[in-house]
């Protein structure tokens, strides 16, 4: 049974409070029991406590599937990119390196790649993924487009991303401030890579040579 077409996943990084509820709820999901597939990333840990939850964006052109040499990553007809198919995955890690969002994880011990599959056992019957059910600030939201427009009048969903020369459109939407969305219609995934961290080197002035007067 496919995921209902009117239900979408929305990520609102502004609302993330870094509580890690999603990490723990994710391990409870039956499609990847005991393993958390969601990543909670610090944006700039030296300067800020801001975190961003990263789930699979379920690309229209899944790079992970494009690079898979074993033909193991498949996309169901509702647009959900599934975890690697067990009989095919050779645990080469190509998908881990290729994913623009850093989603797939390689489990070297059991020779398999596993990734967020939008809790397919739940979303395919119209239920929310585990992370969206527990998120206290609803930074992770699963519902209809009308709901999100009513709940977040200041923001608008964007599903176009730029990763170097690659333009990616996704099933999962990112909420951005409405004012910004009119100026930039996509999110540049790699933009932060060019930012240089502010220098925090501490320099102490040395006043002369303290041993100048000492006779040896």
């Amino acid at each position, binding site marked *: 049974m496919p995921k209902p077409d009117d239900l979408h996943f929305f990520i609102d990084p502004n609302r993330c409070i870094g509580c890690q509820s999603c990490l723990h709820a994710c391990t409870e999901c039956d499609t990847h029991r005991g393993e958390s597939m969601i990543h909670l990333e610090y944006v700039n840990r030296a300067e800020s406590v801001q975190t961003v939850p990263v789930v699979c964006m379920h690309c*229209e*052109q899944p790079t992970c*599937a494009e690079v898979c040499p074993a033909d193991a990553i*498949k996309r*169901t007809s509702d647009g959900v990119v599934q975890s690697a198919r067990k009989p095919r995955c050779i645990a080469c890690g190509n998908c881990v390196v290729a994913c623009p969002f850093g989603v797939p994880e390689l489990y070297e011990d059991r020779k398999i790649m596993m990734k967020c599959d939008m809790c397919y056992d739940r979303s395919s019957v119209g239920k929310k993924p585990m992370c969206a059910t527990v998120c206290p600030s609803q930074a992770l939201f699963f519902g209809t487009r009308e709901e999100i427009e009513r709940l977040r009048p200041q923001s608008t*969903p*964007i599903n176009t991303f730029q990763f170097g020369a*690659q333009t990616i459109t996704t*099933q999962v939407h990112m909420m951005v401030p409405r004012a910004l969305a009119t100026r930039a219609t996509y999110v540049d995934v790699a933009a932060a890579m060019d930012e240089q961290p502010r220098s925090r080197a501490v320099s102490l002035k040395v006043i002369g040579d303290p041993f100048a007067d000492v006779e040896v």
Partner: protein
Amino acid sequence: MADLNSRGMSREQISIPPDGAPLDVQPAWRQDFPIDWPQDLYVERRDFMKFMVLTSAAFTLGQVCIGLQNWYRKQTGQPPVRRIASVDDIAVGAAIGFAYPDEHEPCLLVRLTTNEFVAFGQKCTHLSCAVIPQPAEGSFYCPCHEGRFDLRTGVPIAGPPRRPLTRVVLERRGQDIYAVGVEERTT
């Protein structure tokens, strides 16, 4: 923002190649290794028929080979008569090993009673492990998979083997026991 259902594509084919070009100008391997699950599971009628015909042909060829092998075995006739042992060499309820018709076919000669002798090939009919004679329990025992054969007739009585052990036809000439042929049985 693009509506998910307005692309005019069937639900089967939803993934777009990275260059965005239409499917008919894409390289052929994209058809063989599709990203979409329904396409991956799709089996063409022609491929299915090809599989069925080739598999049936393989089975038929196998049967013909078995028939030819049986015919060839009948043509070659029985192996030469060979003396195995003297009656006095073997106690009642004991067994000795010998090779017949050549050194690659280990066999067992068992003395059941004073005047009764039986001999069987030692290869278990399951996976060709060497069977162990256990005259006290009235059976041959295969330790690989707990198979058992009847000591007197060689028919399987327990475990995975389904065919009886190869029987060696014996002949007693005075005080000597001779092997005069082998009998491969299916039931």
